[in-house]
């Protein structure tokens, strides 16, 4: 049976590619804003759209924040993408607001870069082992577009980094709570491999 994977729909964003990538990776996506539906899934993707503050407001109001905390505490896999990863942390300069607090650390505006957003294909430096990046070679290119970045408290939570006029966290998390600053659903075959790994974590 295909693992059922919830995709949190918080309004304005394009979830088409996330849904298609999960399908292509062997999962069954359920795109929804209903926490009761999300509660029935085996894994959840929190995608990246809009601004942190309005996203947190929406998640809090819909009861999704609590659901995500319960989901993470149960050990079922949770994947954050771009803004989704940023929402896993606490203090967030964008708004400002406070994220879900699933991972210790904060989110800051990208500073001292010639161009913001950091937009385009950049390469991955692997920092620690994670099932999410199984069979993803060091140096693989993935597609970024973001103006804020995560600063995990613990080095151990940094899974992969990239270099944009200085180091940036590209993949972070621990256990079954993991996220990518880039968009795997926009990162060609490398991105699909990451979705396949996530579906594998959910299914097995």
């Amino acid at each position, binding site marked *: 049976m295909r693992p059922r994977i919830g995709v949190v729909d918080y309004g*304005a964003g394009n979830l088409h590619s996330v849904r298609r990538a999960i399908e292509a990776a062997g999962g069954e996506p359920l795109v929804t804003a209903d926490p009761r539906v999300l509660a029935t899934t085996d894994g959840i993707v929190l995608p990246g759209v809009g601004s942190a503050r309005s996203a947190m407001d929406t998640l809090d109001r819909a009861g999704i924040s609590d659901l995500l905390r319960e989901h993470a505490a149960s050990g079922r896999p949770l994947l954050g993408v771009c803004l989704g990863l940023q929402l896993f942390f606490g203090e967030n300069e964008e708004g400002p607001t406070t994220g879900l607090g699933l991972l210790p650390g904060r989110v800051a505006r990208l500073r001292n870069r010639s161009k913001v957003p950091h937009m385009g294909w950049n390469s991955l430096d692997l920092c620690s082992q994670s099932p999410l990046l199984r069979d993803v070679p060091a140096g693989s290119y993935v597609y970024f577009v973001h103006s804020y970045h995560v600063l995990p408290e613990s080095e151990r939570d940094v899974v992969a980094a990239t270099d944009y006029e200085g180091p940036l966290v590209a993949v972070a998390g621990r256990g079954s709570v993991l996220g990518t600053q880039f968009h795997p659903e926009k990162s060609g075959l490398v991105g699909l491999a990451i979705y396949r790994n996530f579906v594998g974590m959910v299914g097995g």
Partner: protein
Amino acid sequence: MLTRRIIPCMDVRDGRVVKNYQYFTALPDAGDPVELARRYNEQGADELAYLDITASVEGRKLLLDLVERTADELFIPLTVAGGIRSVEDMQAVLHAGADKIAINSSAALDPDLIARGAERFGSQCVVVAIDARREDGDWWVYVRGGRTPTGRRAVEWAMEAERRGAGELLVTSIDRDGTGEGYDLELLHSICSSVGIPVIASGGAATPAHFLEAVTRGMADAVLAASMFHYGRYTVREAKEWMRAHDVPVRL
């Protein structure tokens, strides 16, 4: 290191590509933009762009269907330009699966549309396209396919677009477009050194050497080309290999 992007652009009318794509006559359906998109993806295109030149409501539906079919299959960023006049138009295109929308005439006529789009969908979705013509020692913004002057200076308009929330600029030289003489490097340099958002160079490319000058002397972050790829003079991969050989970081 962040790579420089190469973006093939396809002109689409009523859901079909409009130019004569000699190189692709071997494809089962060379008029289908998805066939071309697939081919460019295989060659290593970093993003794809559709410029919709449809005038009819029916044609617009065909475009949305095309965007959906492309996004169903290709997992790289897709930009749609042409005919986007409102937040509702943006929503329809993004909902179909596009990642960015480019606005040109509608932004020049209604600059607040940039802010409304950015607020609703995020700046990263909103590309402002600027068509500029060189006159009297400066560059001036034209709209409606380069026919109507706006009285705006291109560099000032670029800065205003950034201030209003554009996430990226697509800068086309009307003088160079279709000439194959290369991008207007001074125009690119003037805009790139005035804004803090990424800039895509457009208009005039015929060889990988033009890409190289656009990202070095022009300081552009990405290059867009149409006929250079459509007519098969170079594949995307050949252009990238050439750029890498000249020390420009590219995704290969």
